């Protein structure tokens, strides 16, 4: 059943990823590709990251709502969102009562020692797939290096990276990238 599949997949994602922001991206990318790969090529997920940055709310909830809606309409949205939210809800209710015990537990400390850097490595891996899709949309090949699209993407990426490091607002950054994309498109260079 599609609703159960959505609920359980996102429940698993919500239950095992520690850390905010994009910590859930690697597992989401993998699981979405595994279950609904034909609906969500890498390109669609990267596009949606831009949508999520420009709308309110946590990335995990946005992504769950979006995937659920594309796969199975409003009930699918609700199933996926419930799934991604429920683990943290339950865990916080338990931890809120035993916080001191939890915080000082050597097991929790040990697990965190491994998981925090793991998330950094995993996100780097997820970013690599995004990068491959941006620079080599037709697959990794030397031929891509001779297309203007490769250098135009690299140029946009470089400029935006500098702006991002200078703490330009993400929404402004996305708007600028969109304008660049449209101009390049109508010049017939993509």
């Amino acid at each position, binding site marked *: 059943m599609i609703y159960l599949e959505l609920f359980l997949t996102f429940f698993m994602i919500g239950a095992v990823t520690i850390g905010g922001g994009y910590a859930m991206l*690697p597992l989401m990318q993998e699981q979405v590709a595994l279950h609904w790969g034909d609906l969500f090529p890498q*390109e669609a997920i990267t596009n949606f990251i831009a949508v999520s940055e420009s*709308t*309110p709310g946590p990335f995990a909830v*946005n992504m769950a709502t*979006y995937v659920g809606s594309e796969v199975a309409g409003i009930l699918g*949205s609700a199933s996926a969102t419930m799934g991604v939210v429920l683990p943290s809800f339950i865990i916080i209710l338990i931890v809120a009562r035993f916080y001191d015990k939890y915080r000082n537990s050597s097991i929790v400390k040990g697990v965190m020692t491994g998981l925090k850097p793991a998330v950094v490595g995993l996100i780097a891996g997820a970013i690599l797939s995004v990068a491959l899709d941006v620079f080599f949309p037709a697959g990794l090949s030397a031929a891509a290096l001779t297309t203007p699209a490769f250098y135009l993407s690299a140029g946009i990426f470089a400029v*935006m990276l500098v702006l991002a490091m200078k703490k330009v607002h993400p929404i402004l950054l*996305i708007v600028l990238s969109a304008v660049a994309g449209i101009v390049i498109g109508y010049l017939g260079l993509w």
Partner: protein
Amino acid sequence: MKYVKTRWKKVWKLFTTFLKIGAFTFGGGYAMIPLIQKEAVDKNGWVTDDDILEIIAIAESTPGPIAINSATFVGYRTAGVMGSVAATLGVVLPSFVIIFAISFVLRQFQELKAVQYAFQGIRAGVLALLCKALWGMYKKNQKNWASYIVMAGAFILTGLLDVSVLPVLVGCAVFGLVTAKVMERRAQK
């Protein structure tokens, strides 16, 4: 009777407050903390500044999005389980409604040439945003051999060798447990 009434009032107030927080924070997670502080500490006095620090510490060491963790925690501290349900529902609802609406709009317009061009540029911009987020997370990590090994290992396994994420997470957790024990022993000596 009066107690019951004030409790439901609190639950309702939690719902509307977190609805507001959910509707106005872009970027989620840490971006929400100052807003929660303002609403839950300064305005309503539900929790203290110390509680907020505690919430951040808990949110960082439990699974799930920080926004959900904080809403559940503040709701529970303020009005028990019903409070946590109200706050969590409140913080989730705005993004749920907005994204659900947007998914329709995206479907309608994704065939347009201009939209496809725009997203072609946007994807390169998103890559920059992700790199910046990664840099921020990297800087917050401990700088010792164990964490470099885990970072590199997780990246090589999932990014280059296509190993699934879940077993890598489990492996890193076990590795963390072992190294934490080793470091503890060394510190004792």
